[in-house]
């Protein structure tokens, strides 16, 4: 019963719970009160629920730290930390932060590996320098020029179907 009808429907457990905890105010509180006055079954349920709540709270508040636990905690918080290996925090940071970064870099590398000429300026420069066309223009001796021309001819032959 969300909004309790004093005579017909019973009060639902959660509403009864709220009433027991004095959380209901105004009309809802009066309705529950009136219903309980008239309904023995709900009064019994209310009494049962009260017992349950008391047991719940008593059980919860019985959990207390012992003096030894208290002293142990204070000691743990005040004593200087034992010497520790530098690798543990390093490895933790690696796992936490560097691993995803490495994964992203690896993916980027794999994606871009298919187009090396577009990405690597140093490779591009080396390719241009090593090209026979360049060698032809930069040759300073006749021997170098002949070598470059030979390479150009060989490459042209390779490219023919």
């Amino acid at each position, binding site marked *: 019963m969300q909004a309790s009808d004093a005579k017909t429907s019973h009060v639902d*457990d959660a509403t009864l719970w709220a009433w027991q905890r004095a959380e209901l105010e105004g009309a809802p509180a009066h309705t529950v009160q009136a219903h309980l006055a008239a309904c023995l079954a709900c009064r019994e349920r209310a009494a049962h629920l009260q017992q349950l709540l008391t047991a719940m709270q008593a059980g919860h508040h019985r959990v207390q730290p012992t003096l030894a636990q208290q002293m142990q905690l204070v000691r743990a918080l005040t004593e200087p930390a034992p010497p*520790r290996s530098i690798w543990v925090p390093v490895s933790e940071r690696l796992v936490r932060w560097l691993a995803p970064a490495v994964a992203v870099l690896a993916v980027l590398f794999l994606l871009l590996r298919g187009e090396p000429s577009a990405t690597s300026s140093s490779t591009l420069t080396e390719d241009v320098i090593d090209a026979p066309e360049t060698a032809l223009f930069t040759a300073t001796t006749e021997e170098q020029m002949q070598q470059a021309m030979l390479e150009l001819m060989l490459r042209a032959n390779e490219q023919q179907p």
Partner: protein
Amino acid sequence: MRDTDIKKTELPNVSLEPHNSAAAATLSETDLIAGCRAGRPEALAELVKRYQPAVLRICVSLLGSREVDDAVQDIFVKILRRCDRFEGRAALFTWIYEITLNHCRDELRRRKRKRWFSLQALPTAVVDNIPENTRPVSEQIETEELQRRLHREIQQLKPKHRELVVLRDLEGLAYEEIARISGIDVKLVKSRLFEARQILSRKMKAYVEEASHASK
């Protein structure tokens, strides 16, 4: 390697001189947190004395008994590391409960990830810390069985429900405080708590019926 061990060196530099605990007991929240910032041992001991019970209770209720001392220690390490950030806009206990709740959420996620999470029986902390009881043995067993069952049922609630039952019905916090701590609005706190109570009372009703059948 636990967070505590890794970060211990980042804690305020606490001196180990003898301290006056009687004077510390009267410290206001502001002085207490200022003392912790300055690394005064009496303030630190007082902080532990005042808030360890609540932090432990919440951890036991939300996480179960396993590794609960470690969780409490980690929470206090976080409190000390963050005490510079405490601005005093909310009460100190609200701030501490918020850190505790967030730590428990993280811990539950960690356990879930590692498939470690399993439902706990009555926490050892409860068993270890039961005060001397003067009630008749049969009644005592009955009550303890009821509490054990209640604890188990609370542990079986979804975390979003469990948190609210713990904060409202066990710790007795106001709705506004719960909203602030759990980062949801008051209306949502109320509706979730309503659901949680319905689930819990339905389960407990089944248990009570079982128990009464068994006793007949």
